[in-house]
């Protein structure tokens, strides 16, 4: 576009952050597609739009975003589990990173659910790449993905009977005294 033209545009805001504008546009699209109130905790840490939703809606939302012709989030960058033991009823979470390669927009979607009922719908029917990512999340956090074709451990041994990335398993044996350091708090 020619610079004079863009300067003459009446609604051109002065020094508006392009990432903010883009995120506002994506957020408007998200709410128009999936309705008000679907997304909570809307943030933009370091310019990456982050929304939180529920596990009941997650499959519809990601399927809708993948198929939407305007934005086309057809690349699932990564997903990972997370554990916040102090958040009662929302101890476990899954974090999805989507990327629209046509428009170069990234989006982060989070869901939280209780550790006693860690069941989440699978995304393997949408993205082939979700297969091993979900197996990894199951392996590390014990998240059960309903509909996954082959939900077994991937990196750890099959006969492991706990989920090692949960915060209840400290990295070092908590009963050891020779490693405590009263001054530096390790």
């Amino acid at each position: 576009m020619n610079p004079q033209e863009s300067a003459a545009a009446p609604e051109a805001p002065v020094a508006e952050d392009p990432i903010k504008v883009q995120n506002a546009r994506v957020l408007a699209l998200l709410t128009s597609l999936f309705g008000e109130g679907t997304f909570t905790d809307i943030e933009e840490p370091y310019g990456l739009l982050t929304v939180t939703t529920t596990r009941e809606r997650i499959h519809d939302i990601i399927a809708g975003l993948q198929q939407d012709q305007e934005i086309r989030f057809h690349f699932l960058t990564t997903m990972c589990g997370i554990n916040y033991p102090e958040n009662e009823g929302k101890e476990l979470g899954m974090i999805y990173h989507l990327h629209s390669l046509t428009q170069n927009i990234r989006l982060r979607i989070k869901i939280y659910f209780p550790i006693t009922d860690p069941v989440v719908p699978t995304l393997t029917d949408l993205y082939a790449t979700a297969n091993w990512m979900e197996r990894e999340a199951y392996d590390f956090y014990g998240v059960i993905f309903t509909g996954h074709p082959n939900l077994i451990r991937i990196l750890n041994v099959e006969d492991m009977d706990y989920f090692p990335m949960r915060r209840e398993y400290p990295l070092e044996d908590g009963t050891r005294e020779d490693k405590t350091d009263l001054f530096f708090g390790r």
Partner: protein
Amino acid sequence: MAVNDTLEGTHKIHEEAVAQRHGQLMPLLNDFSQELTTLNLGPTHPATHGIFQNILQMDGERIVSGVPTIGYIHRAFEKIAERRPFYQITPLTDRMNYCSSPINNMGWHMTVEKLLGVTVPKRAQYMRVIMMELARIADHLICNSILGVDTGAFTGFLYVFQEREKIYEIYEEVCGSRLTTNMGRVGGMERDFSPVALQKLRDWLKTFPAVMKEFESMFNRNRIFMDRVVNVGPISAEKALNYGFTGPNLRAAGVDYDVRAMNPYSSYEDFEFDIPVGTNGDTYDRFIVRNEEIWQSLRIIKQALENLPEGPYHADAPHYYLPAKQEVYKNMEALIYHFKIIMGEIDAPVGEVYHSVEGGNGELGFYLISDGGRTPYRLHFRRPCFIYYQAYPEMAVGTTLSDAIVILSSMNVIAGELDA
């Protein structure tokens, strides 16, 4: 009693898991009714160049199905990282894709800098670009020359390995180590390029293109080589995207996604380079794309070296960047900062960052959640190998065993990155 109970429970879980797995893998054992043979390719096999297993079902020479098993060198980096100060996580990243450690190191440093809000001076950014592109060349050289070895062409491997050795000598001059480099620091580089390092780099830039040309002339139009790799293991662009391919493997399928161009970091926007793409994503395309990327990396290195700005080689961030050792002996503030950084006493701000760099194999992402402590609350690595290796069975089915080896080799699966 309690111990026995636990053991019994473990055995039960194990038996269930095995039964479940056998159900999915059936027929796992040699099934003579269909005259299928089960072949264990790996975990330690000279042709897989890494420790991972593939259980293949063979109908004569053809592969009917394949089940990959990974995790043989899983070291729980994500768990370990939750108890380490940021600077101690750099050595972990070395050991992911150990063929191009500097890219991993600098990707991690940039992630932390993004979290801390530290701006790195231009000179350090250009120095990083030079080291990252050297690492990319080393990575691609290994992949392509090993592909030659797997097709029976040993000579090319020996030619370019000498050049890789020279790259490692440059690393050695820059940071002191060769394979697991632990290069740079949060905030910049730990020292400036020495005159020897610059001289080695300039010499190498003069000699390498001739060797690379020789390597290409040995392979690119070689009838025997082309017969082995053209139309072997093709993957379409849609499928590659669906499988989360990135890097040269995705570009070979015809998608021009390169993190360096799409989300420039470390001043990549200053340099002019092309993104080579293939057409049908077969082994030959992957080979050619990697070769072409080596030339583009050379272009970037030359531009960065020519325009290397003067100035400091690290950010002015005393809370995070170690002071010079001489200062520590003489200066009280430097001593305090040194002590606090080494002891991991410096808290990071609360926040979450996703930063990705173009690694040797594709988009290498770091997702860091900080709760304000000295260590990450959660650190997730997006390892390109782990994500695209799951497409391997689909690409290998229907080919012969020798083709399957070539496909595996051309995908450049690095066990360290696969398992993290």
